[in-house]
């Protein structure tokens, strides 16, 4: 057993509701995520990808099974800090500028304001939204919001980055550049990366592909294509 594992889960299940109306979003998933892992989580809409991401990120609790973060600490210590997430939907805080949004994880973790803003600004530049840093989220396009969300996820130098549909609102070319930036940043930080997507082009850029369908998780490792 590897004690450096970022995440280790055993027979993980998450069922919403109870009785006849119960919906099994994830059933009996067992997996391990190690430092440096690059995992694409694929599956159709409603297959349970987001649920699995929330469980990995400690945002939600399983109804059965176990999950732990040997190298990251207890659930309470995961965020802000070792784990960060970028969400599928609009998730920038409306009253804060893009820059303040990006700096928020650092500030929540106790970072100094000036330093946080500098780091956040650099990360926004990296994701090509540096020019809208002073704007409010509602002034951005969907694609800009998504890129700002990616920048925020990486601004705090996390050890595990969880991304839900990173390029859903980007054109293919921009999506490609965003994946480049994402992979480069994760590599620089030595962070594990899990990306939920149903875009196979995006999925193919990651060495590991896990698929979820009907709440069942299948893990497979694909040989690195480059």
């Amino acid at each position, binding site marked *: 057993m590897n004690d450096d594992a970022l995440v280790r889960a055993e027979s993980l299940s998450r069922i919403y509701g109870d009785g006849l109306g119960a919906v099994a979003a994830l059933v009996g998933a067992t997996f391990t995520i190690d430092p440096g892992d690059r995992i694409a989580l694929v599956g159709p809409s409603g297959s349970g990808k987001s649920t699995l991401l929330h469980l990995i990120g400690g945002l939600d609790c399983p109804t059965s099974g176990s999950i732990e973060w040997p190298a990251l600490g207890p659930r309470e210590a995961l965020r802000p800090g070792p784990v960060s*997430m970028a969400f599928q939907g609009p*998730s920038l805080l409306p009253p804060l500028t893009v820059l303040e949004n990006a700096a928020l994880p650092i500030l929540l973790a106790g970072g100094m304001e000036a330093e946080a803003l500098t780091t956040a600004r650099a990360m926004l530049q990296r994701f090509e939204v540096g020019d809208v840093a002073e704007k409010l989220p509602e002034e951005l396009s969907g694609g800009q919001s998504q890129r700002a969300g990616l920048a925020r996820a990486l601004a705090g130098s996390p050890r595990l980055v969880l991304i839900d549909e990173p390029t859903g609102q980007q054109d293919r070319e921009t999506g490609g550049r965003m994946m480049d930036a994402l992979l480069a940043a994760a590599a620089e930080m030595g962070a594990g990366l899990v990306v939920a997507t149903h875009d196979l082009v995006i999925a193919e850029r990651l060495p590991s592909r896990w698929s979820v369908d009907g709440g069942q998780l299948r893990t497979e490792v694909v040989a690195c294509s480059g």
Partner: protein
Amino acid sequence: MLGMTWLQGLARRRTGRLVGQASCVALAVLLLASLGTFFAASRAKMTKQAIAAVPVDWQVELAPGTRPAKALDAVAATPGVVGALRVGYADSTGFRSSAAGAVQTTGPGKVLGLPAGYATTFPGEIRYLVGAHDGVLLAQQTAANLGATVGTKVTIGRPGRSLGTVTVDGIVDLPFADSLFQSIGVAPGSAPTAPPDNVMLLPSSTWQRLLHPAAGGAADGISSQIHARLSRALPADPGSAFTQVVGRAKNLEAALGGAGLVGDNLAAQLDATRSDAIYAQLLFLFLGFPGVVLAALLTAVVAASGRERRRREQALLRTRGASPPRIVRLAAAEALPTGAVGVVAGLIAASIVGRAAFGTSRFGATTGQALAWGVAAALAGLALSFATVVLPAWRDVRLLTVRAAQATVGTPRKPLWSRLYLDLICLGVGGLVYWQAVKSGYQVVLAPEGVPTISVDYFTLLAPLLFWVGAALLTWRIGAAVLARGRGVLASLARPVAHGLAGVVSASMSRQRSALARGLVIMALTASFALSVAIFNTTYAAQARVDAQLTNGADVTVTTAAAAGLPAGLPAAVRAIPGVAAAQWMQHRFAYVGNDLQDLYGIDPATIGRATSMSDAFFAGGSARHVLATLAARPDGVLVSDETVHDFQLRPGDLIRLRLQFASDHAYHVVPFHYVGIAREFPTAPRDSFLVANAAYVGRMTGSAAGQTLLVRTTASPQAVAERVRAVMGPASGATVRDIVTQQRITLSGLTAIDLAGLTRLELTFALALAAGASGLVLALGLAERRRTFAIASALGARSRQLAAFVWSEAAFVAVGGLVLGALAGWGLAYVIVKILTGVFDPPPGRLSIPWSYLVAVAAATVAAIVAAGLGMIRATRKPAVEILRDL
């Protein structure tokens, strides 16, 4: 179908918003229904009490040569007359008595012949002080002038002869002497006739025997009146009752065909009550209407707190093809049930409040009145619901693009009023209107003498209205300016709770300044409403107590008509009674100022304040302390009335020669005084002219230091202490013991007929609930609308204390800012209202009374509501709802 589905969705997902809206509608309906019904009942009560305060409704002066029996029949046959008696009036050249070898005489007076049963037909007209209730009765002042008491023989003087001697059976007071001796039939606007200084009441038979021309008396100065009492079944509205009574009087005069003129005391009283009824309306306007407006504003704010979300939902519907009319219908589908639920809840609450505060769900009003106000309040509630939900939706679909409707924060645009500086304009114009009111002596209700109609100077009422609106808008401007330009200051203030997040917190607050300024204004308005209502009511209650104290003199007052005064050992005996804090002498004499006989009060200026309150309003030209010190510094000083200063063109230090009765010969002699100040009111003093001097000087100059009045301050129930004093005095003392509580009940008239205690309870409870509810609700709804924002922050790893920093910073801004600005606005508003409604107060207050305990309770309830709302939100953000996470 879509409407029903939409409504079901709202009921499941937006329960808080719907409940909040319905609660606010309920609040508005509750206040409107309760206050409206209460004031309708009050008008009826005012009429009832005005009528009850008149013992003789009509005094029909018979023309010379009229046969009294025929006139009596005509009066008795007039519709509505339930009792009529003939009263004889005769002039006397004076009265003379001889007691203990000394002969006392008085100036001219009146002798009345009263038929048997007069006192029972006209209860209250005669107040019995000492001795028998029938036979020969002498007025209190006459008895004092003659040094007469029960058993004294008094000779009645008539021009050219003495009519004979009668033996005094009792001493009485004539509380309604002004109307009893009025000049009937004089032109409107003529100066009122002062009642005679000396009065004797005789049984009709004695009067006929001694004075009637048929019995050999001279006809000069002899007349007859028919006194009549009317049925009390009059319209509830004072104005309608007045019209009816005047109509009947005119009808009687026509029936008498010149044989008699009607002195209409009842109409005069109802005339005054008409003005009071207008003041009652104004009170409703000033104290009730702002509450209803606030409840309406609160409903609007609650609706607005969900407006962004509603806009987004409606924008979504529009992108899916919903037409503007359909969107408006969906908004109506939300407004109708919330309005209906609010109306039903409000009416039920009003009924409960009425039962709790007044013992009846109709607040003492008739079923018709209660029903009318209930229906009016219900319609207002439904209109409010539609205005706050449907109207904005209709406006949005007309004016906003779908993209704009999806915006949540936006760059706050300066509203039109702000660009036009409407707040400063309102305050400026309000100040001008107020200045105009100051110039006109705060005459809001105009009731010119001799003119049958009364009117309200509604223009003056603009002053408080403009102040209120101006203060609200200025609060908004200040709040928005602080949030926009004071980020650095806000960050510094937030740092103790927000630590490293202080900058982000202040930035977040700054960008939500529209919502926060709205909350601040609501908080300030509710605080100012609570404060102004509380100050007004407390000041009113304080002045009512001052009024009663003026009439009664002190908590408990012992008076005697005897020249010898009260027993010398009485103060010491009274001070020994449990519940007595202080007891002080006061002389009550009579003094001639020229030919005018006035009451003179001899006091010890240094100690009088121990037994009764000396209000600054009692004196002109300085505080009570200052004026009394001036009097004390000059032993022969005297305080006189404004009228005397004017009549005699007095200047401070001027010599005044008064004539006072000396103990040695019971005759009036000149005593020099020096004018040192003006007294406008004084305990036990009449409303017109009187004098206040040093008791020691009066005693030394007249040869008698005896006090006729003992003023007692109590620490226990005045009624209980009065009972104990009566026991100490004994039944045969001849002195009268009165207490302030009973006096307050007796002197209730006019506007005081409004049960302000009930109204105060109602308003203060409402204001408290509104202040606490509004602040808590506005904050809670504002935070609830940002649950998603907090959920995101929580998902990013924000700890509870960090989320709390956002919540508490906003809460503190709204609470502290709202309370401070609201307190300033409330105090200013109370000042303006009290000044403008000066006519309500008797005497006018020298300063505002601040109900500190109530204000602390309002502040505490507000803070508690805000803390509860904040804690609820922090608790809710600890674990974001699953559905919110799934949305991310």
